[in-house]
């Protein structure tokens, strides 16, 4: 079965949540994005963000952290129903990523995926590029991140 059959177009599915602790925010930032507003609560208060907040790349990684177990569960569920799961491959990238609001220490972000479109690859028969909309919102229901990701699907 193809991804477009498993996920009807436009259906938004919740894939999980991540709690962003101050420790996790600082640990990620020390390695990858050591800017004062991701490392130090006092410095963050002086910045445009107004408080210690996660690197935008940490917020993205949180989406992936939810999607992988969600998708493993989907594959198991489909197999149990006797349906061959779609064979998803790596992603060639994403577009239109918007960091809509800071993710502050203590926020819990819930992530979603929405199937948008599938396009057949002319160069490789049976291969497809799927477009999926990826979103996250905080515990107040405010959108914090959205982007459109591409996912390869094998025949």
């Amino acid at each position, binding site marked *: 079965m193809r991804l477009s059959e498993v996920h009807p177009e436009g259906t938004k599915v919740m894939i999980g949540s991540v709690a962003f602790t101050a420790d996790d925010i600082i640990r990620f930032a020390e390695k990858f994005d050591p800017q004062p507003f991701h490392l130090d609560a006092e410095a963050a208060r002086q910045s445009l963000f107004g408080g210690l907040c996660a690197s935008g790349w940490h917020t993205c990684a949180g989406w992936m952290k939810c999607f992988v177990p969600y998708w493993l569960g989907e594959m198991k569920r489909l197999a149990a129903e006797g349906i061959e799961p779609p064979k998803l491959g790596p992603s060639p990238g994403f*577009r239109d990523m918007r960091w809509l609001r800071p993710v502050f220490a203590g926020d819990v972000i819930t992530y979603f995926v929405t199937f948008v479109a599938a396009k057949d690859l002319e160069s490789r028969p049976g291969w497809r590029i799927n477009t999926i909309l990826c979103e996250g919102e905080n515990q107040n229901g405010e959108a914090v991140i959205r982007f459109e990701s591409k996912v390869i699907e094998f025949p």
Partner: protein
Amino acid sequence: MLHFEDFPAGTRFAFKPVTVKAEDIVAFAAEFDPQPMHLSEEAGKASILGGLAASGWQTSAIMMRMLCDSYIHQTASEGSPGVSSMEWKKPVLAGDTLSGTCTVIEARTSRSRPEIGIVQLRGEVINQRGETVAICDYANMIRCKPAGSDA
């Protein structure tokens, strides 16, 4: 300290080379992207990536660190509203040495906040063979020089 005025189109910063270690790939993947080709050499070899490969999100995060070290740390930067496009062009495999550049594409002041400029940049990450592994078009909010300053 660099301000918005120091970022005319064409300004370019070079990334310091970074070697991506197998243990770092596995540690990142275990926390954020636990797919087999990011967790073991064997599974990576069996995949179309051809070896133990970094999650695209790790490559992105490594690029972020390169941006910090190349210019953001010496810039009055106020973060980013987003990324218009990220292309993961080639797998980043364990042992690869990444470097690259980022280049200012366009710079304009913010209409709503005249003290802030919005700079569009393109980051390009290359491997030790000179192959482009990632291209990223993104925006960076940068404070303008304080009024009255002639520095």
